[in-house]
């Protein structure tokens, strides 16, 4: 096994400052009974605010400091979001609360071309999602986590670690005999463990505070010094956990991890540190969520054709935007494009303090097969244009026309909703519609290309009638009967128009259309 750990430094703070280029002075405090500061942004730190201070003293140092109470639920959710996104690299991963995600990548090394390639891709993707991450690799999960915390990436370690030791005996499945036992030299990565600081022992709660205090009291600074302590002596001082933790890190003791079970629907949010009503700022923040959604979809080989973006207001009911993508898509660029049009056309009732993105109706993604001659990309574009226009103008602003089998000119056409995708010309519905329309059209006389919304009265003296009358007398069954004689005519501007007079009042002429 070979593990890659994603460590999120200052995690309680990151969930509040996610995606900000220049975070404002902000500090996260522990829940009320203690009220001490847990993490601060660099701007606040520059003003003298430190971790461990009381919130009152921090406010005295920096009056404009924003204080946020630590939100463990949000931290867990964001951790799950990262895990769901990172599934694109490996199906086997494990959450390591409070602030790390572990990936088991031994089976994917060859696919991605080595551990450092995966690390680079992970960092780039997570930075795009607005997270600040550190990564580390090792054959055991605990060592990987420690390397990540200490900032030793696979690139910083010597590269062969990823290739040589991935084939080493799997320590967490079957404890391998200690390297010292059979006299072989210990692998290089184990030597990198020794200089790490002793505080890492308490990292995920494996050693409690009294034990750490004991080790510090003994004057120990590094893990290597702790490893050389006699086990009997530690046991006598109730500190057996030190030996066990080190053994787990070195692969001498099994370290089973529960696998992460991905959620079946996407529902993630982020909080905006400063409420805003600027569409650009909202879009910038929403792009983090779209990147995450794209990764989540990619891991499932799925796509969505609509999702819901909820704009959370502090005191008013939330604004909900339905984003319709026109065609099933898993591309972040398309999500962003449609969201931009929707945000530009939306009137906000109040400033937005948080965003939430939901997607639950998954569609199986069509694997894009490239045509040797044609360009399948053009087909995708066609739905994109329609989706963009609909997002900006609404369903009323964009429509399609269809012909109906009716002799009344005003009832012979229909503005139908443009729908979510193009009605493919070869589709059965289109052919049927065409077949329906064809017989009536063929039986009728000439029809104008332009129809007036309402027939317009016109003086008979201005018209020159051409040809013979076409009588249309129908519609008695639905309460809108017409009885008209239609003529071709030329008006005083030489335009060819379609005029009629009603059978009830023969002297009154109306223009109904133009032969454009």
């Amino acid at each position, binding site marked *: 096994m070979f593990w890659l750990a994603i460590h999120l430094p200052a995690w309680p703070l990151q969930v509040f400052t996610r995606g900000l280029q220049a975070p404002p002075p902000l500090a996260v405090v522990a829940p009320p009974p203690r009220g001490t500061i847990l993490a601060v942004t660099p701007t606040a730190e520059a003003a003298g605010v430190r971790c461990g201070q009381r919130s009152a003293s921090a406010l005295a140092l920096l009056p404009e400091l924003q204080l946020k109470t630590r939100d463990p639920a949000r931290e867990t959710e964001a951790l799950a979001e990262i895990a769901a996104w990172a599934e694109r690299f490996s199906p086997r991963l494990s959450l390591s609360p409070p602030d790390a995600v572990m990936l088991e990548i031994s089976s994917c090394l060859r696919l991605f071309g080595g551990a450092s390639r995966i690390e680079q891709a992970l960092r780039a993707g997570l930075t795009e999602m607005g997270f600040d991450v550190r990564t580390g690799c090792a054959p055991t999960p605990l060592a990987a986590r420690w390397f990540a915390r200490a900032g030793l990436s696979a690139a910083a370690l010597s590269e062969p670690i990823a290739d040589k030791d991935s084939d080493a005996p799997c320590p967490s499945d079957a404890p391998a005999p200690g390297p010292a036992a059979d006299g072989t030299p210990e692998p290089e990565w184990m030597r990198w463990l020794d200089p790490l600081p002793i505080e890492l022992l308490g990292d995920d709660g494996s050693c409690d505070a009294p034990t750490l205090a004991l080790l510090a009291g003994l004057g120990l600074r590094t893990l290597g010094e702790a490893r050389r302590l006699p086990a009997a002596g530690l046991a006598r001082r109730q500190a057996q956990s030190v030996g066990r933790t080190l053994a787990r890190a070195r692969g001498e003791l099994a370290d089973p991890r529960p696998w992460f079970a991905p959620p079946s629907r996407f529902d993630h949010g982020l909080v905006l540190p400063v409420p805003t009503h600027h569409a650009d700022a909202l879009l910038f923040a929403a792009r983090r969520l779209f990147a995450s959604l794209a990764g989540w979809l990619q891991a499932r080989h799925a796509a969505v054709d609509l999702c819901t973006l909820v704009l959370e207001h502090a005191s008013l009911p939330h604004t909900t935007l339905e984003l319709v993508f026109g065609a099933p898509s898993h591309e972040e660029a398309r999500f962003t494009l449609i969201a931009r049009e929707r945000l530009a056309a939306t009137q906000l009732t109040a400033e937005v303090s948080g965003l939430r993105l939901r997607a639950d109706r998954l569609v199986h993604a069509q694997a894009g097969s490239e045509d040797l001659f044609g360009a399948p990309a053009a087909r995708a*574009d066609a739905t994109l244009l329609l989706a963009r226009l609909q997002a900006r103008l609404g369903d009323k602003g964009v429509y399609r026309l269809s012909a109906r089998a009716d002799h009344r000119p005003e009832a012979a056409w229909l503005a139908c909703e443009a729908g979510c995708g193009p009605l493919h010309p070869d589709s059965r519905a289109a052919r049927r519609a065409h077949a329906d329309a064809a017989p009536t059209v063929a039986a009728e006389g000439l029809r104008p290309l332009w*129809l007036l919304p309402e027939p317009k009265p016109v003086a008979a003296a201005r018209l020159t009638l051409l040809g013979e009358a076409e009588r249309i007398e129908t519609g008695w069954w639905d309460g809108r009967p017409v009885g008209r004689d239609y003529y071709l005519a030329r008006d005083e501007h030489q335009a060819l128009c379609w005029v009629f007079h009603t059978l009830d009042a023969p002297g009154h002429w109306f223009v109904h259309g133009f032969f454009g």
Partner: protein
Amino acid sequence: MATPALRIAEDGRHDAPALPPGRDILAGLPAGSVWQAGRVAQYPQAVHPTGFSALDGELPGGGWPAGALIELLLERPGVGELSMLLPMLGRTPPDRWIVWLAPPLQPYAPALARAGVPLARLLVVRPERPQTLLWATRQAAVSGSCAAVLAWMPRIDNTGLRRLQLAAEESDSPLFLFRPDTVAGQASPAPLRLALAARGDLLEVRLLKRRGPPASHPILLDVRAADAGPCDSGTLADASLRSR
């Protein structure tokens, strides 16, 4: 359908057999880079045949230029402007839209279907504000998924025209802009401007501006002949463009 006397193949070789010395140097240059007086310009991009040989013969390249803003100036709707475009609209390739933006009257579906225009791929867009209309026109032009874009803009300033021309240059489809004929005297960045008027049963087309020598006489087109039924030239499958 008129074919120009000299045809320059895409790889720069000319297939006219004998040319005077000097001419072959000119002809050997990439198409469109050197214009010789007295010859109508050739467009580097594809052109869509209009369906009227008299008009094809006068238009540079022999058809509606793809990727250009084409202004059609007319006094009022109904002179025959749609009939002139029907042959081209009837040849819309599959998976491409025909977008009509802010048409002044209601396009009548039965007549369009009868003329061979695929209704399933015809989008009518009616934005509420002029800025949105300009935005939608540009999006339709640059999307690359439209066979033709038809926009009616009674009022548009020079900046807007310039933007539309740039958007059209990015695309591979013609962008037809319908404007009132009162603006015929104003300058415009559109490379092709046509004034349309009804003359009896015929449509009179005056070429106000084209790349090449100015057109001396108006062209009379019998556009109504195409109204009687689906256009004769080409089926839907024959959607290939003539490319120079």
